């Protein structure tokens, strides 16, 4: 089932029952692939039931596409099995790394934007798309530091990866705001430089404001609160350029009630509904 150009939310075990009992009106659900890699049990039971009612997108957090080391083939196979089982409309992963040697570091770590990294990321995405037999979406990161050796601006790097691999993109608008604040970039210029034609999904989430040792703002991508007003502004700008697009509210810690989470998704939908199509489309409709 394709993901409609509507709002969805990240599916949380705390909300399984209420969703099945009330069958709320929502565009889609998204799950972290790794949370459904157990052999059996209630997570699969609930996801199967919810999948019968709603479109699903699958979001990987453990593939470590940006690692220097080769991709974990066992993990790729598990992803392939999960995709075969749940037939998600979209599959996305991150521009980040998290595996080194034997250890999995359980965070989305940043990387230098260099030619070497570009080749590595592109060859890993080629391998993912070939193994899974489908296109994947690549998500832009939230970052707290920069690498002195980087030679590409982030949107240029992502555009080049996209061009080389033909992957789709997941534009995390909150990550654009977080990274732009932390790195002192202009978030609107970031969006302007981003290859929007390849964007198939948007993420929105809350962050925690802190400061660094020089009292500069440092936003932490915590997914534990409502979407910030500045992110809604940037989202409106993105929707103005893209038109309605599948938009996910990510809320992973300090979870709200189902009602509050659903209301947050409806807010994204209201933005999409107020989108005014470009003029030539309206002319075509009246002429």
């Amino acid at each position, binding site marked *: 089932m394709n993901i409609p150009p509507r709002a969805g939310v990240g599916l949380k075990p705390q909300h399984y029952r209420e969703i099945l009992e009330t069958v709320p009106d929502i565009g889609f659900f998204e799950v972290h692939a*790794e*949370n459904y*890699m*157990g*052999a*059996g*049990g*209630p*997570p*699969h*039971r609930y996801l199967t039931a919810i999948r019968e009612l709603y479109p699903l997108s699958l979001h990987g*957090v*453990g*593939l*470590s596409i940006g*690692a*220097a*080391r080769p991709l*974990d083939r066992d*993990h790729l196979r*598990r992803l392939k099995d999960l995709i075969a089982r749940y037939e998600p409309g979209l599959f996305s992963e991150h521009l980040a*790394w*998290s*595996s*080194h*040697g*034997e*250890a*999995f*570091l*359980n*965070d989305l*770590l*940043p*990387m*230098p934007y*260099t030619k*070497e*990294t570009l080749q*590595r990321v592109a060859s890993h995405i080629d391998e993912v798309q070939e193994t899974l037999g489908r296109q994947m979406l690549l998500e832009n990161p939230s970052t*707290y*530091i*920069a*690498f*002195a*050796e980087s030679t590409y601006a982030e949107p240029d790097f992502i555009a080049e990866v996209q061009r080389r691999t033909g992957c789709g993109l997941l534009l995390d608008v909150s990550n654009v705001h977080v990274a732009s604040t*932390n*790195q*002192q970039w202009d978030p609107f210029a970031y969006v302007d430089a981003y290859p929007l034609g390849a964007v198939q999904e948007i993420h929105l989430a809350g962050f925690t404001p802190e400061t*660094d*040792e*020089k009292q*500069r703002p*440092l936003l*932490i991508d915590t997914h534990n609160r409502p979407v910030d007003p500045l992110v809604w502004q940037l989202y409106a700008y993105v929707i103005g350029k893209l038109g309605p697009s599948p938009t996910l509210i990510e809320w992973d810690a300090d979870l709200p009630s189902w009602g509050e989470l659903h209301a947050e998704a409806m807010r994204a939908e209201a933005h999409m509904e107020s989108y005014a199509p470009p003029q030539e489309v309206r002319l075509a409709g009246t002429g």
Partner: protein
Amino acid sequence: MQGLAERQQDFAKALLDAARATPPGLVGPDGLPSPRRFAVYRNNVVAGLIETLKENYPAVHRIVGDEFFRAMAGQFAITHPPRSPIMLDYGAGFPEFIDGFEPAATVPYLADVARIERAWIEAYHAADAEPLSAADLLAIDQDRLAQVRLALHPSLRVMQSRFPALTIWRMNIAGGEPAYVDLDAGGEDALIIRPGTEVRVHQIPMGAAALVRSLGAGGPVVAAAIAALEVTIHFDLSATLAGLIEAGAFTGWSLERDAEGDPS
């Protein structure tokens, strides 16, 4: 300039070792080093792992308190980072770590409580299977019962403790009420299993754990009964088997090695 592999190696080492300096060339917007920014990653990794352990070991957390738990789990996280991106598998070695964690020596039953919680998580995510009913097992020729081999439910785990660890665990999960426990009251063995939707934790009699282990290793009922009798001469085979059947412990039986019987 370092290559990507060396860059990530230095980054990873510094993440897990707070005594290491921030790797060079990691900078803030002014192009100058920013240890505070690097510390965000360090904190994300360790705090994330501690949070995972806290979710998976709620009774251990309640028994020792938040501060002690964070110190213990943080030590575990640094010395035992995950080996797999599947975080629901994380923390399998935590009970053994607690056994050897010096500051926890005053809480000698803590590791066994952790073993129950680990078994609970494993049972929750184990493969689904339909347990045999008593009626299914009545179909076995009673004269050959001693030679029957029983297949265990994939979610089944046993935990043996020389402490009343099961009682302590129950008191410290959600809805439990901690109370005085006589640690010398004798050990408790537990069976942890998810025959359907919910994980169940049962106390099992002495010898039952040995019986289950022997059956799990593929031995016939008679060998398993002998293993249980070696634990206690008071072992009651039929009562224990009846209890296990009721708990949903078996999913198949056979009279031949490697050939599972069809219960129908």
